[in-house]
């Protein structure tokens, strides 16, 4: 049974999202936990993992395009399934008056650049090689008092 994947609300203030990268193509099998797309919100670019299983039947927007929260992002179902009825029904329903035209006329953004993302997304990844839980250094002055409770 085909199911609609809506544009998720990935931050409390997000009203629309841009798909900056699709990680699945139509016809691909998608499993719960698979990375479906990278979505640019008002705050940052977030990875969106599917929480549904199925074959990707339809992508609602292309890379670089925006669509409102709750509009159709994708449809998952069984291979070869006809998704048109469920898509029509959804678009007729809740998302109609303001959101529908917007979803169709959304302007493709010219290549969303990484440097357009807000500052939070730009913090450089820090290698944290020293922060493994299994490696605890015991300062010399603590040797008597501290019981080391590490279990491998």
């Amino acid at each position, binding site marked *: 049974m085909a199911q609609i994947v809506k544009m998720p609300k990935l931050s*409390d203030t997000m009203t629309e999202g841009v798909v900056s990268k699709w990680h699945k193509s139509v016809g691909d099998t998608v499993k719960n936990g698979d990375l479906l797309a990278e979505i640019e919100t008002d705050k*940052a670019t977030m990875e969106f993992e599917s929480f549904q299983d199925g074959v990707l039947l339809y992508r609602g927007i292309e890379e670089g395009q925006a669509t409102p929260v709750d509009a159709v992002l994708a449809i998952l179902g069984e291979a070869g399934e006809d998704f048109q009825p469920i898509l029509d029904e959804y678009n007729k329903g809740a998302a109609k008056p303001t959101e529908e035209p917007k979803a169709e006329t959304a302007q493709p953004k010219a290549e969303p650049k990484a440097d357009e993302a807000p500052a*939070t997304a730009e913090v450089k990844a820090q290698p944290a090689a020293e922060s*493994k839980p*299994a490696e605890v250094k015991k300062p010399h002055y603590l040797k008597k008092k501290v*019981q080391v409770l590490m279990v491998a």
Partner: protein
Amino acid sequence: MAKTKFSKETYLMWYEQMLLMRKFEERAGQLYIQQKIRGFCHLYIGQEAIAAGAMSTIKADDNVITAYRDHVHPFIKGVEPKYVMAELFGKSTGVSKGKGGSMHMFSQPHRVFGGHGIVGGQIPLGAGIAFAEKYKGTNNVTLCYMGDGAVRQGALHEAFNMAMLWKLPVVFIIENNNYAMGTSVERTSNVIELYTLGESYDMPAAPVNAMSVEAVHDAMEIAVAHCREGKGPYLLEMKTYRYRGHSMSDPAKYRTKEEVEEYKAQDPIQRVLTTLLEKKYASEAQVEAINEKVNLIVDECVKFSEESPFPDASELYKDVYAQEDYPFIRE
């Protein structure tokens, strides 16, 4: 330290409880992006061994207080998950009557004192609860949880000093997941082995590998017994990791994917599952039965929350001030 031998039943309980925490939080994350849960939402995914290891060491009258990554701490004290889920939905059947939300899980009968949104605010409160227990002459212990960011708050030092001075029965538990939002422990202080802060107050302290539920249990057992015997507070630094961002809107770009994978390879739930199968404590079929049971519980949580009503408008001013005619309240 001698390693405790754990029974088959304990391992089965740990597996089921940790899996429940994980599935509950995964579902909460999904419901958040579907806007069933609104506001803030901080998930516990990856840190489950800390809560599960405490479950096997405390008793019903002990107290729990924590910060805002608090969805699973009520489980430690036996709160049914559906009441926590209903709270996330903002429904009147929630533990805080739908008026607290994600960061404010309270249950007076279960002695769960929150759920606090102010970073480090719960540290002196936890010491205060322990003071009350000592004053009343009980032998109840208070578990006071905090993140590695909260450790850098000034209130911690005053609370530690007084807790030690008055020998209060409180276990201070640092859930060190390496990042205070996006700021690594190394970037906030020269003291990166957080348990060593106890030394300033002669408070016994220890680091714990919190990716291992056995290690958490052993450490908690020592610390809780120390408090219960009236010897004063104890500090434990649980070295853990969160797999998700700080909150739902955090893309976690401050760390590498390799680092996350490194921790996922030590997953506490997977470790317990491996033990269950290797020691033949459970068959594949029994594990599958537990997995199904957990999924059903989470489904039931969501159904219960969906079907519960939102709080009535008349609830707005209730439980805000103890004094009923408080001047700020105008009907």
